[in-house]
């Protein structure tokens, strides 16, 4: 006899937002949407049934000799910020990539892109430099302007943080070689003994 009973899981349908239900014989289950009647395959993990972690508000100071939090002087300090050394209560402590940090250091680290765990966006300067060295080649005449810009960009952004993913500096090197070649070619054109284009243009 087939057991037709279904368990409602705390997962909502990505299409319509209705709740999903299914019969379970393993954590990988077939779920049905009550709203749009779509069928899903789901792989469930224990975090789904764990509930939210309780917020630690921090203990109040019991004795005068106890160290207080830098931000909340009335609360007991439990850790030290690993960047600035400020005492922090349980509420102010932010655990990030195995470090205990204060909110100020986290904010500064995010702004200066020092905490890679908080980076959500990166500009690919090497790709920009390579495009700047190759695309104007199709039209030739913009290259006296774009080649020096490319070289400046390579020097300026050589140490700028690039992609979080594995990536070599090959694009920078290739862009540098191409831009240098363009600069050399234009120098040869302008400074040739016959005067080249320069002479033709200005007499």
């Amino acid at each position, binding site marked *: 006899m087939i057991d037709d009973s279904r368990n409602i899981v705390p*997962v909502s349908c990505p299409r319509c937002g209705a*709740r999903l239900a299914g019969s379970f014989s393993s954590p990988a289950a077939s779920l049905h949407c009550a709203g749009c009647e779509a069928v899903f395959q789901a792989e469930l993990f224990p975090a789904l049934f764990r509930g939210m972690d309780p917020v630690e508000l921090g203990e109040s100071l019991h004795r005068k000799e106890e160290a207080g939090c830098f931000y909340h002087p009335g609360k007991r300090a439990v850790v030290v910020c690993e960047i600035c050394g400020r005492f922090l209560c349980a509420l102010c402590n932010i655990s990030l990539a195995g470090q205990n940090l204060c909110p100020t250091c986290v904010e500064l680290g995010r702004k200066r892109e020092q905490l890679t765990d908080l980076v959500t966006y990166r*500009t690919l300067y090497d790709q920009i430099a390579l495009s700047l060295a190759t695309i104007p080649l199709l039209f030739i005449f913009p290259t006296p302007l774009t080649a020096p810009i490319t070289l400046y960009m390579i020097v300026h952004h050589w140490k700028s943080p690039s992609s*979080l993913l594995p990536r070599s500096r090959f694009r920078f090197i290739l862009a540098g070689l191409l831009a240098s070649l363009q600069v050399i070619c234009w120098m040869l054109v302008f400074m040739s003994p016959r005067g080249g284009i320069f002479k033709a243009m200005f007499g």
Partner: protein
Amino acid sequence: MKYTRLPGKKAGFYRRWTLWIGEDHLLSVESNIYSEHYKRFHFKDIQAFIVRRTVHGLITNIILTILACLSAFVVVMYMPKQISIPAILTWAVLPCGILVMLLINLVKGATCTCHVKMPLTVHELPSLWRIKHVDRMLAQIRPRVEAVQGRLSVDKIQATTALTAPGPLNSIPSFFPREEILEYGGGAHWFLFGLLIVEAGLTLLRYEHGSLALTLVNMASGIALFVLIIIALRKQKARAVPSLAKTMTRAALAVCTAGYLLSYVYASFLLVKSRNMKLFDNEWAMVSALAEVERSADPFLSKVDVAYAAATLLCGVTGLLAMAFNRQPHVKRTG
């Protein structure tokens, strides 16, 4: 932090999505040419992966099969009888190319959408759009997540979740309503895609045998098309319509606008060129003069007509297939 690439990749016009695995999290990367955007999903917080099979792969297979058959038919019918081997190879390039694309799509397997559920939100993982890739990704991720969270037993699921009585699924109360989904049978879309196919036929008929009656019918169908497109666009905004059908509706708007604008501007240019300015004072005379333009003899108009007919036919057939494969009652009102 070192990242290792996981199976699956989705490439758009200028964007690309990939998925990477780090020490303690998954990293979904959306790259365009000059920048990358990251989303992190920590193993300790991942609650579930939700996968839904889609019909995109099947529809692509059907379209590619039709195109392969059509191109093979054209080659068999129009290829000269006695030609050299390089010429035969040139004729065979198109059908063989389509056949190779079909084979690649068949080997890649069925398509899907994959979402990851986190404590507060549900995120789509666009790079995982083939079931094969989802399976491979799960095989790599499962041990890592279980190492952090522990193993989930069926007993625990059954003990924690509410059990419903056997019966229709739509009796289960809805939860987390995101947006109101209104009742819609898809009528406007069905009519629109049907009319697109009719429009393709009418365009080809007018291309071969131009007449005043056909021009008028064509104009009427054009007006009807634009009205239907507007209705369909309005309807699909708050109703559950297959995403491919939505895309085809937008594509139909672009195709019809471009087609009609090009033919109108060029036909007007031809009328001006004929130096008969009286035509512009009389609408009926203008329509009659337009009907007399021999479209198949004009290289520009003939190309526009053929391209327009092909595009409308493709939109119509794809839209109809999308509607047919998603035929399910989207009639529940949530909230």
